[in-house]
């Protein structure tokens, strides 16, 4: 039997994104040396929301951003049944000397973030890299990686799935915890 529980609804997500944006502004001011990078495929929905909200709050239309595909940098290529099909790499910028905010939806084992940091370095040596996460599944890390900005911290068992749905593909924004028994 599959049990499904909603953790965040559309309104919760909206409020959380606003708070995350305020925290980003607190540290990055006008974003003139900051680049926002969404991790493909699912981190880009969150990064697009954040860029839209920041643009609205700061009234500066040109926040530098990109979407990073990490497929070729992963460490589980031959541990899966099927090879990972790459997503679009949209990185028409240099990260040399920039402050990078890396954005993904869920932080679980930390392995994707490790790959993403590796992939980032192909575009220059950034001044700093921070991590922004909508949901932090704490106590389930395989690697010593911690986020700088957290939407919500959740405790979930390894057998439970945390799924973030986005309006663009699923019709509405919500976060679900799925447990199969």
């Amino acid at each position, binding site marked *: 039997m599959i049990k499904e529980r909603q953790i965040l609804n559309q309104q919760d997500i909206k409020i959380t994104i606003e708070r995350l944006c305020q925290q980003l502004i607190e540290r990055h001011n006008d974003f003139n040396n900051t680049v926002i990078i969404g991790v493909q495929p699912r981190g880009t929905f969150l990064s697009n929301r954040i860029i839209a909200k920041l643009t609205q709050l700061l009234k500066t239309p040109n926040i530098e951003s990109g979407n990073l595909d990490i497929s*070729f940098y992963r460490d589980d290529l031959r541990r899966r049944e099927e*090879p990972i099909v*790459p997503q679009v*790499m949209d990185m028409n910028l240099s990260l040399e000397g920039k402050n990078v905010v890396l954005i993904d939806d869920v932080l679980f084992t930390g392995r994707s973030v490790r790959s993403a940091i590796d992939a980032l370095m*192909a*575009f220059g040596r950034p001044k700093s890299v921070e991590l922004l996460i909508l949901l932090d599944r704490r106590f389930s890390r395989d690697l010593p990686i911690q986020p700088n900005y957290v939407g919500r911290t959740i405790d979930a068992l390894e057998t439970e799935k945390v799924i973030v749905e986005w309006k663009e593909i699923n019709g509405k924004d919500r976060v679900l915890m799925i447990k199969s028994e």
Partner: protein
Amino acid sequence: MSNLSVDHLLGIKYLNKSDIDLIFKTADNFKKIINQPIKKVPSLRDITIANLFFEDSTRTKLSFELAEKRLSADVINFSSASSSVKKGETLLDTANNILAMKVDIIVLRHPNPGASVFLSRNVNAKIVNAGDGTHEHPTQALLDAYSIREKYGDVSGNKIVIIGDILHSRVALSNIYCLQKLGAEVKVCGPSSLMPKHLDSLGVTHFSDLKKALQWCDVANVLRIQLERQDVNYFPSLREYAMVYGIDKTILKSLDKEITIMHPGPINRGVELSSDVADSKHAIILDQVENGVAIRMAVLYLIAGRIKNN
């Protein structure tokens, strides 16, 4: 679909359309990677690849080696000219000796048709065919079709004529399979003596008149006259071949449309292509070379994905 239907790349004959589409989609990503400031990804850092070249090759070997290095694989190179093959070692013995050094993938170029199929049945490694005699040269066909797709948006619906020595050309055979699987219309052109007997069974018709062929096509893939594979004289002289089947600016200007010229290299300038055509904007020969690296990265990445981790 995120997996190839085959364990080895032995020929285009063994692939289906979704395999080719997957290779192209993966190559799109690698083409971006090789235009990045840092052109290397760590995907195959735990894979060892042996390039076994029993026949001369410059660009295919360089292209494979570059693709392997950009995927971070460990690479060993072998060419028969400087090896124990000269001392009488068989292909199977050579391959098994190399495999004993824990090699995961073999890229094989061999003068005998079917050498890669033979090796795939007898050794425990993934095989990528880099040309086996007059049989197939699958990565060349993939990069040719990929270059057509890049230029026209799609391969399907285009008319492609392959010009030259079809009889001895593995590039021609692989190209015919590949382009037909992708929905293009393929015809060939060249002296009748250089046409294989089984052309009809491939669903391909033959132009003996170059002008008519060029007038019909969108893309002309021009092949090199492979004198090294010709055991008897198939035409009177290279000069006569160049007069009848050589493409120059004059014949291109006489057409009522612009066509694209491709060539797998190496070009015999003044024989199949004149220099002004080879260096003109019609020719996408250097794009083919760049795409070759991306295609080979995609093939190796997808084949490596089929090696089970133990």
